[in-house]
């Protein structure tokens, strides 16, 4: 639901980078979106296409790398990765004392500029 705000932040970062480094336009922006970040990829793509009009990123496409949810459980000494969006307990031992390691990402990792 807040994907428009995320898309606007993305554009703002990209624009400021290009202004600073002297680039004229953007062909693509690569982002990592964790599956537990609360952001839907489809909605973000839609929002980005709507907000990029008349900006330096007008022709840019968004490349989304979805990052699965993974973590480490200190009770059973187990690294795990799951398909689900959220983890409530360690998938092996069921304990709740685990640490999420990936899945909350909301990062830009590269851009193609000219």
């Amino acid at each position: 639901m807040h994907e428009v705000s995320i898309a606007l932040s993305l554009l703002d970062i990209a624009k400021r980078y290009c202004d600073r480094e002297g680039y004229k336009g953007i062909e693509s922006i690569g982002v990592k979106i964790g599956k537990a970040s609360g952001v839907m990829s489809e909605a973000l793509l839609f929002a980005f296409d709507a907000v990029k009009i008349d900006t330096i990123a007008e022709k840019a496409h968004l490349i989304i790398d979805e990052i699965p949810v993974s973590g480490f459980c200190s009770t059973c000494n187990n690294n795990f990765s799951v398909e689900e969006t959220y983890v409530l307990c360690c998938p092996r031992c069921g304990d709740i004392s685990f640490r999420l390691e990936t899945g909350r990402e909301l990062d830009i990792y590269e851009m193609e500029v000219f």
Partner: protein
Amino acid sequence: MKVKVVTRILEANDRIAVENRRLFNDAGVYVINLMSAPGAGKTSFIEQTISEICRGGKKLYRKLSIGVIEGDIAGTDDAQRIERLGIPVVQINTGSACHLDANMVNEVIVDLPLNDLNLLIVENVGNLVCPAEFKIGEDMKAMILSITEGDDKPLKYPLMFQESSALILNKIDLLPYTNVDIEKIKKDSLSLNKSLKIFEVSCKTGEGIAEWIEWLQSLVT
């Protein structure tokens, strides 16, 4: 040409949130970001908190000087309700945005008498999803779940339960009239966030409000 640009997408928001936090800390104000779905009772809960602090015109909790920021998509009803209680309040209308962000809060800080306050409650836009993603410069996130929303909500909307330090279960006076399993709400919430502090309150009867304020007092220096 490909270039590596490693940046958090919400970096701009986070930067302003840090600035807000510094302004609040310098003034000695503890800030609570209060979130919930629409209709869970955020404004009523703030009203009850204020009324309990100043019950019968006598300030029972002398340590607390409270101010409020009201976040709504449109309208000033909530700010008017707080203003009637004689508390400094600012209304933010987000237009269409489904959450408050750090910049919106930054713009209204100047309208609050920060130096006279030690507690600021920021009522976020009613929404159980997006507000949890955006830092606004708060010391603590707290959320309200009214029991009539159902006992399935923690597992359906886990992020807010994970991000919050306090969970206020409101409308417990309605418990006898529903099939809601309040123990399930508590168990599921704690499985998402084992350090969550849970309060059971009724804004209608005032039950549980005193316990909440005792806890607030312990946070505010």
